[in-house]
């Protein structure tokens, strides 16, 4: 049996990699993928806590996280496509103005 702590440590490492990725990358699509990685890391800790507590509620939370992530990805990518049509760039530094 693997100690629960290992799963939680792995989840913490993945979450941190995702957070640092959002901060250091400039490409908005890759930044978006880093957000997905953070969501995945949280899902892993949900499932681990679920197994520790012997329940199923955490897995239902993961289900809702999946639904919200799907909606978020669809809207976010549509926004990126809309910005790209006006700027021809996927660089976060170029998006410094709200409107012009």
């Amino acid at each position: 049996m693997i100690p629960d702590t290992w799963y939680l440590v792995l989840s913490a490492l993945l979450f941190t990699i995702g957070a640092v990725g959002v901060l250091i990358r400039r490409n908005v699509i890759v930044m978006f993928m880093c957000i997905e990685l953070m969501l995945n890391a949280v899902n892993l800790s949900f499932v681990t806590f679920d197994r520790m507590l012997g329940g199923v509620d955490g897995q239902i939370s993961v289900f809702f996280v999946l639904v919200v992530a799907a909606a978020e990805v669809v809207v976010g990518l549509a926004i990126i496509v809309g910005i790209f049509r006006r700027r021809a760039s996927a660089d976060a530094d170029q998006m410094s103005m709200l409107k012009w």
Partner: protein
Amino acid sequence: MIEGWVFMFSALIALVSALAMVVSKHAVHAALYLVATQIALAVLFLLQGAFFIAALQVIVYAGAIMVLFVFVIMLLGVDQKEALLEPLEFQRPLAIGLGLVLIAEALYLGTYDLARGLAARADVRPLAGEGNVESIARILFTRWAFPFEVTSVLLVVAVVGVMVLARRRA
């Protein structure tokens, strides 16, 4: 014993792919590494007995969501070069420093004996002899039935919003 090896192998793949995703120059490579991380996480879900979540992870995340990412990358052109020049020269060291602080906090909380005291509070338990999918279905359609219905509203709102956003003003 074999469980430990499977855990080590999957955790290693997940960590290495996540790091490679953050440092890869091309967006398509980053997407591929993210798929590898997600499949490794699906193996870890299987290892913990969360069979339904593992299947969802492969079908929804590694399947649908990543296809959407790759589709948008192809739509925008794969030859987008990321600017190497950082306008704020202190930002990158600061980001890595804050990442180290975050990992210290998360490791402290992860190794803290937080959930042990809560063990008596898991009031929704699978019935005896019930599989993972059956227990999720029973609880999702009884206790969580209303939030489950609300997610359908969320998905409709997302679809309508995307159609408004992506429409060409002709």
